[in-house]
């Protein structure tokens, strides 16, 4: 049985909205995203960049959790592996940045394929534990394999190319990547393939009975999800210019999963809402205290108890309840 985190967060079908209204929203959001650096101070712009990057990571988790019914705790490691490859390639081997990014994403996709081969046969809690263990192995390797990874000292990058060196142009560069990537993920989960994936989430045995190749679908979904996490990781290499075991550690996976859950599992774009909330919270909290892990843990506990369907998921429930009430009123 594929158990989603919360049944309520995963509507079987999206209500079809009018295309004109969707287009208006898209234009509005695009204009807001483009105008953002013009109104925000440069520190906030870099936070916005971070939100975009982690939004992609959280979405990559949501592709599996919300549509495949497989909650992963290994995506922080997949993401960080890409960061490691990009920085190792550019700073230690002296390779070009673009090749580095391509290699980073490629290696990560391969890593995701290995993870997928091991994990797709399991579901529910077992899947979670297995991806957790796999992610921890990546972390252990990064920590102990000092001759390559620099151990706890980590690796420093060579900086961004001149063209995207400053905060604002880098923000636009990231935006330029994130928008098509988001679109690709959106298409991916709304394609017939995505529908099959949802079918697997809701009833694996029925899909198997209908003749779908369940493991193959999950494998492809996992690899695609790993690819997207790799894109986020490569962007993060440019953003952070430094990588250490803390980039691949469990709390990275946990924070990213928390973003996906806070936004609402199975809403995809909710990941950006989640990323905005969690990263803003982290920045706000760090002003007052160094106890971010406690706050992160507490947020996790509270969300699990009170709002497992997340912000966007909750909004959707409220919206559909209102709609139902309106339609029942119209009937009477």
């Amino acid at each position, binding site marked *: 049985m594929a*158990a989603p985190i919360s049944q309520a967060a995963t509507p079987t079908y999206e209500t079809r909205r009018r295309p004109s209204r969707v287009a208006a929203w898209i234009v509005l959001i695009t204009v807001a995203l483009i105008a953002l650096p013009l109104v925000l101070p440069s520190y906030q712009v870099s936070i916005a960049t971070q939100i975009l990057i982690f939004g992609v990571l959280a979405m990559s988790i949501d592709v599996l959790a919300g549509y495949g019914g497989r909650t992963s705790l290994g995506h922080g490691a997949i993401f960080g592996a890409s960061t490691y490859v990009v920085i190792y390639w550019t700073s230690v081997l002296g390779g070009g940045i673009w090749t580095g990014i391509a290699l980073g994403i490629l290696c990560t996709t391969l890593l995701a394929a290995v993870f997928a081969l091991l994990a797709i046969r399991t579901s529910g*809690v077992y899947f979670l*534990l*297995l991806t957790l263990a796999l992610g921890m*192995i990546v972390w252990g390797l990064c920590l102990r394999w000092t001759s390559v990874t620099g151990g706890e000292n980590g690796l420093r990058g060579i900086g961004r190319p001149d063209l995207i060196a400053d905060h604002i142009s880098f923000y636009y560069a990231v935006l330029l990547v994130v928008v098509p990537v988001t679109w690709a993920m959106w298409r991916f989960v709304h394609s017939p393939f995505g529908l099959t994936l949802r079918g697997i989430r809701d009833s694996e045995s029925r899909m198997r009975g209908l003749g779908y190749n369940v493991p193959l679908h999950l494998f492809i979904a996992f690899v695609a999800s790993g690819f997207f996490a790799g894109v986020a990781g490569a962007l993060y290499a440019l953003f952070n210019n430094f990588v250490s075991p803390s980039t691949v550690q*469990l709390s990275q996976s*946990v924070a990213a999963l928390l973003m996906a859950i806070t936004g609402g599992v199975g809403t995809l774009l909710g990941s950006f809402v989640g990323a905005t909330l969690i990263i803003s919270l982290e920045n706000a909290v760090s002003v007052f205290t160094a106890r971010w892990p406690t706050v992160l*843990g507490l*947020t996790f506990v509270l969300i699990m108890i009170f709002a497992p369907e997340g912000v966007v998921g909750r909004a959707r429930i409220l919206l559909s309840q209102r709609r139902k009430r309106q339609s029942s009123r119209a009937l009477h």
Partner: protein
Amino acid sequence: MTGINLFQILNGLTFAALLFIVASGFTLIFGLLRIVNLAHGALYLIGGLAGYSVAEATGSAALGAVAAMALVALLGAVLERGLMRFVRGAELRQVLLTLGVAFILDDVALVIWGGDTFTVPVPPMLQGAMRVGGVFYPKFRIFVLALGVVVFAALWLLLNHTRLGALIRAGVDDPEMVEASGINIRRVFLGTFMLGTALAGLGGVVGGAFLTLYPTADAEILVFSLAVVIIGGRGSLVGAAVGALLVGLLNSIGRVMFPELAYFVIFGPMALLLAFRPLGLFGKAA
């Protein structure tokens, strides 16, 4: 390579004994209560550190171990009664909740004890080395090995030959029926949860004496325990023992042959096993 000798095998066996003590608590809670407690590693760390403080203050490691087990069992009770009640029945929400708790506990440990490395003092009786089959080996590690065997035997007897064990097993199969026969099943489950976490606390003190305790020790022991439970299959005591032996020995061999990649050596067999038995060696489908 002829680097594998009796000494390394003994290292592997004693590490396996520690792993068994920790992982048996994990698998007990996982298998019988269907709760995956990812705070297990954090409880190990807190237990070890508390045991260290008590042992330093009183000069008695045994007292430290008892205090650690009591404290961690208490924390377990708070977790089970205070938090898990809100997410009962929802497996994934339970796991993620315990993960949140793990982060909080780790951070609390960092605030109280700081980021230093601690070694729980070994009682004088167990200090020094003894001769085992031609090699000198630390007495304390032999003690850990014996302790692992004792814990295994005690748990096996508890589960298979006592009334409480029968209640626990019955409660897993059909909690409603057990309730209907006039038994407070929630109390049985709470007891099991506390026993499982107490084992993490005991592991923390024992592990703290020969592996030392440091801020990431909880994550390391957790991944080893996960490997043990994934290999052994959930809820199986024998599985946990076999898994602990495999992981312990492989880890010890890996450390000798590929010092930097030791972590990787437990990964290969786990992967191979999962390809054939996704539920582990002794796992049964729920």
